[in-house]
């Protein structure tokens, strides 16, 4: 059998020459993937390309089998899973968060509770000097100014994570708005992409909105400190985001980590996933191709690659989740035989 050419995990770069791996999907982890793909290309000689076409596009591309693996910010529901041509697995690759950004000149460290978020984004609190906001921010002098809510006008994983959190903390939100990549917003104005929302907020005094943490951290955008499920006010950073995954993570890693029960966790945190077929012998793929891909993914969840993630403002996977991801990669087969030994 051809398996004999596998010299046990470590491969020299010459044997990978000519192999090319294509992937597409979520735009949220793109800065990380771009760096990691390039780095691994240099290490292994495999040529890797990633197309940031959105989570929906990533799932479609994998369904059509035009990519080696897809990437998505929202895990596939049981229904979506069964709609795939064959069984797929989810591999979490890093963690991100959604920050609540605002524009109030001279006001730092604004604190927000779930009740305030609910009322502001549903449009029942409309002024910054509302008694509710004042009660939480006793040390801040809030202006008599209208609140302008800014949301994503395009379909987005960021909106999905944010609305998933809102649905968990607010019954009213779940009833009226719900969870999704794009929503029927009760109030506010829409802007396209993280840069659009960030730009609109920075240009509009009195505005509030939500932005992907990787973008907010890189751009040094001002954001609120949120109260988590334990009643602690938490600043979003790579540590508090990673903490969100310290609790129970199921074996297939399909879980939304928002409103985590961990006392140190930032409440609007989540995984981003890579999805691939469990059985890799399809469409005439070669064993070498499948093996190179699984090796790459194993590297992607290792500490080396996770350090790259942190350097571009994502939170690294906690070690338990990283070993869970490796365990899942070990279940990937080629012609019924396990690829990783």
């Amino acid at each position, binding site marked *: 059998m051809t398996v004999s050419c596998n010299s046990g995990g470590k491969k020299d770069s010459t044997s990978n020459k000519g192999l090319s791996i294509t992937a597409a999907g979520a735009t949220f982890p793109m800065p990380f993937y771009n760096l990691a793909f390039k780095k691994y290309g240099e290490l292994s000689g495999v040529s890797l390309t990633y197309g940031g*076409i*959105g*989570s*929906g*596009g990533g799932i*479609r591309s994998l369904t059509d089998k035009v990519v080696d693996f897809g990437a998505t910010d929202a895990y596939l529901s049981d229904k979506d899973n069964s709609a795939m041509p064959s069984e797929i697995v989810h591999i979490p690759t890093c963690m991100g968060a959604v920050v609540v950004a605002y524009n109030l000149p001279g006001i730092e460290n604004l604190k927000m509770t779930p009740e305030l978020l609910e009322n502001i984004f549903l449009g029942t609190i409309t002024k910054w000097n509302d008694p509710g906001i004042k009660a939480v921010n006793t040390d801040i002098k809030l202006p008599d100014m*209208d609140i*302008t809510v800014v949301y994503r*006008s*395009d*379909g*987005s994983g960021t909106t999905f994570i944010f609305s998933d959190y809102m649905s968990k903390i607010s019954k009213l939100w779940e009833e009226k*708005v*719900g*969870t*999704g*990549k*794009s*929503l*029927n*917003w009760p109030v*506010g*104005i*829409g*802007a*396209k992409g993280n840069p*659009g929302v960030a*730009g609109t907020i920075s*240009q*509009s005094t009195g*505005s509030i909105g939500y932005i992907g943490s990787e973008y907010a951290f890189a751009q040094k955008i001002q954001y609120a400190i949120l109260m988590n499920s334990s009643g602690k006010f938490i600043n979003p950073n790579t540590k508090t985001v990673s903490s969100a995954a310290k609790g129970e993570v199921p074996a297939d890693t399909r879980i939304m980590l928002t409103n985590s029960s961990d006392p140190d966790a930032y409440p609007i945190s989540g995984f981003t996933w890579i999805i691939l077929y469990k059985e890799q012998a399809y469409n005439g793929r070669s064993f070498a191709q499948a093996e190179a891909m699984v090796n790459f993914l194993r590297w992607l969840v290792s500490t080396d690659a996770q350090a790259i993630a942190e350097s571009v403002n994502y939170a690294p996977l906690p070690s338990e989740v990283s070993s869970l991801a490796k365990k899942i990669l070990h279940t990937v087969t080629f012609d019924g035989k396990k690829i990783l030994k």
Partner: protein
Amino acid sequence: MNSDKLTKTILFTASLLVLIISAGIGFSLLEGSMPAFKEFGLKFIITNEWNPREGSEVYGALPFIAGTLITSILALIICLPLAFSTSLFIAEYFRNTRVSNILSSMVDLLAGIPSIIYGLWGFYTLRPFIISLGLSDQGFGIFTSSLILAIMIIPFATSLSTEIISMVPDELKEAAYSLGATRLEVIFYVIVPNARSGIIASYILALGRALGETMAVTMLIGNSNVIPTGLFSTGNTMASIIANQFGEASGLKLSALIAIGLLLFVITGIINSIGKFIIRKFS
């Protein structure tokens, strides 16, 4: 094969290709929008709820149809006097002078600016200006979008009108002058009646451009999926909702977006036909 036959074949193929492409676009839009029309029927066009929530999806395109028509027509109204005056200035009052040459190159330059640049300028310059005038709190909405659209379509209306006005025969104008007509009288009794259909055509062309404009409007209209209630209220347009939500859309939502594309196609078609009708009636 002789050269005449060859030319004929080439021309025939090229024209046929245009027909096939238009029919193909129409067909694929129709096919893609079938699920949405089957689900909602006429309600798709006359209701105003756009809710992509899974399980209770409802799509009504009225807010976008209203947004597109209101912004485009408002833009046309703002553009009309400006474009008309500019084309008279270039083609009649300062005809063949240095001033008109510079002005007409500036107008052409405006036509070449990509729409994203208009959007950025609108976002960073026009919008704060509108806020500072106290017209609106955040500056987003129908008025700002219409204003930027008007600026974008002025060059289209102007260049064509200029061309048409300068084509009015000199003999006619000279005859009018020799009868003692003033410049204004020449414009309104000789030039305009002669150039009428062409001038109207140039505005129809400009309106067509306004209907399909996407990026600049997306950045300024506020993207809220409601029927605009006033000049300064936010809204959304057909092109803008498609551009915004196509990437992550699937299933019924994808079909609803394609259906909006089909409606835009039809509306543009209707407006062009009205334009053709007007031209025929006035010429």
